[in-house]
């Protein structure tokens, strides 16, 4: 199944609109989190809000898709020459030979939240386009129509692994010969359901999230859209950025708590390395799921240490972006590509020293280094685990 060439990759989150802004934020250690100023949200929390997306409108023929998630997806699609790269792929392969495989946890549910507040005296919702906003399929349908593609359309919703899982499922489609290329990634946007949901689990940080800190106190929720164009790699692609491997597993343990020993996380990482034909020492940096909760970061540290010891630098970049849920795997795949291209290990933001109980090689300051391959972790509710290897094509 691997490797696959990543012909284009783009990301938009609170840390930056497009890859250059995202890379600059990483380099300058400038995070995108701020105190929450959206109405109806839990008090005293910080969020990663993409204000620039709020005024974006989809092109007129697709106006029915307008909602917070579509606006953010549209803003992201316009960055980094992504539209042109897909156009070129369409000319190469034909519109029906390119799949759209995208992850989201809550799609445009924010539209239903708004409608709910305007229910009539009989409890009925006011009219809105549920099918093109709230429904999970709305995101890939929008992107597919926007890119004038006519290949298979798949919506993935595996909670916080959705965006990473899209890379793996699209790779299987290319390997099976169903398509020649795929637009993959994910988009998730701020909504009351997720903020209050994580609030109900007492998992929201009081200030900006500080993954891997000894006194870390939880998650900051963010929003993001990130997309990549995958194709089979050819001999001329050596040295370019590619998807070198991917692995997944289930915990089979609990709906919202990870297995404390991280068995599922280890299995996903091992699966990713095996599919890439790589040993752990071939990895130059691990981009952690690192949500900033006590349980996730401790579990993930144990899992990483079991495979890598303390030899490989690892960090979470959610201190910049917040936890962007179903988009996080795609956002962090783009960050992994930046780390390879720029030769950067971004140390956890806002963390003076890592949790002294941790055994893995947590980085808390930026360091320059040649990075050829990054392992990127995503874990989610329902015991879903997914790991990607992004790096230079052999």
């Amino acid at each position, binding site marked *: 199944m691997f490797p696959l060439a990543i012909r284009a990759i783009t990301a938009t989150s609170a840390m930056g609109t497009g890859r250059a802004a995202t890379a600059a934020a990483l380099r300058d250690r400038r995070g995108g989190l701020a105190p929450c100023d959206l109405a109806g949200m839990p008090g005293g929390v910080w969020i990663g809000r993409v204000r620039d997306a709020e005024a974006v409108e989809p092109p007129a023929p697709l106006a029915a898709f307008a909602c917070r998630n579509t606006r953010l997806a549209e803003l992201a699609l316009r960055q980094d020459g992504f539209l042109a790269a897909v156009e070129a792929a369409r000319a190469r392969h034909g519109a029906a030979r390119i799949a759209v495989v995208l992850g989201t*946890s809550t*799609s445009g549910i924010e539209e*239903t939240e708004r409608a*709910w507040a305007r229910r009539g005296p009989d409890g009925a*919702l006011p009219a809105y386009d549920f099918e093109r906003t709230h429904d999970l399929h709305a995101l890939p349908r929008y992107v597919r129509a926007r890119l004038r593609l006519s290949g298979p359309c798949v*919506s993935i919703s595996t909670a916080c692994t959705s965006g990473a899982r899209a890379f793996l499922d699209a790779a299987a489609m290319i390997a*099976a010969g*169903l398509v020649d290329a795929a637009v993959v990634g994910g988009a998730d946007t701020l909504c009351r359901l997720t903020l209050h949901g994580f609030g109900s689990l007492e998992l929201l940080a009081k200030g900006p999230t500080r993954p891997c800190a000894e006194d870390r106190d939880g998650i900051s929720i963010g929003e993001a859209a990130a997309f990549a164009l995958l194709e089979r790699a050819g001999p001329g692609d050596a040295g370019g950025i590619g998807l070198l491997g991917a692995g997944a597993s289930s915990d089979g343990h609990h709906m919202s708590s990870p297995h404390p020993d991280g068995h599922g996380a280890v299995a996903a990482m091992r699966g990713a390395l095996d599919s890439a034909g790589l040993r752990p020492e071939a990895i130059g940096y691990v981009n952690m799921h690192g949500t900033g909760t006590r349980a996730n970061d401790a579990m993930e540290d144990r899992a990483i240490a079991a495979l890598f010891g303390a030899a490989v630098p690892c960090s979470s970049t959610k201190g910049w972006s917040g936890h962007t849920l179903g988009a996080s795997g795609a956002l962090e795949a783009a960050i992994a590509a930046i780390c390879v291209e720029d030769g950067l290990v971004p140390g956890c933001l806002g963390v003076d020293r890592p949790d002294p109980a941790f055994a893995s090689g947590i980085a808390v300051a930026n360091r320059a280094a040649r990075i050829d391959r990054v392992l990127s972790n995503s874990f*989610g509710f*329902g015991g879903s685990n997914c790991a990607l290897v992004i790096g230079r094509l052999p």
Partner: protein
Amino acid sequence: MTLSVGVAGIGLLGPGFAGWAAARAALAGAAPFEPAPVAIPPPALLPPTERRRTGPSVRLAIAVATEAVQESGIPPEELDTVFASSNGEGQVIAGILEALHAADGAISPTQFHNSVHNAAAGYWGIAVGSSRPSVSLGGHDQVFATGLMQAAVQVVAGGAPVLFVAHDVPLPPPLDAMRATAAPFAAALVLTPQRGAHGLLRLAYHAGTAEEPPLPEAMAALRAANPVARALPLLAALARGQAASLCLALLEDSHLAVEAAP
């Protein structure tokens, strides 16, 4: 490009279809089809504390998955899974939306973790003690055909059997007015790299619209009542055990061509 996969086990639950074994004659046209309310069994595989937390969509999924896997004879913990549902657990989503707009705005942590679209997959993993990879898909009215295509892709790409489960239950008010789903319906297939007890399926993706096959009147009504029931022409072909060729609609501009070979 054709995806070729075997069918080693089938599970089914819907109005008038109390399991694949019980439904087979009616599907094949050898017995009358009599729609009746669906009794969704509690998931006996789950420990009681977890069982209590499951909603109708999750229970429906686990019921058909259990039937299909038993028929296949493959240990459940050895199967990768593809779950597909357009509505997910609507009653949980509606409950959270209601709570968010109530005076205190408090939602329950259990409700929140049950609201994820992969709840059925998560509970299945707990029920059978599986650490195998799992993916959960949406797909609106095309959820069955999309899920079947993706499950077949995994079988062909991975060379290993996959459990495919499609399940949908009606949304509660007021969401039901936004998306009508009149009855619960779920189907599960254990797909294998080689021919299975139910033969082979050959699947091909095509751009362009296609006519969905005709069904007897009562079954056509059921097909319109639940997106997963769009599987009925394929299930009928599998029940008859004869070669068949049919189309399942994908988005408005594409379809999945399916050939069943016993």
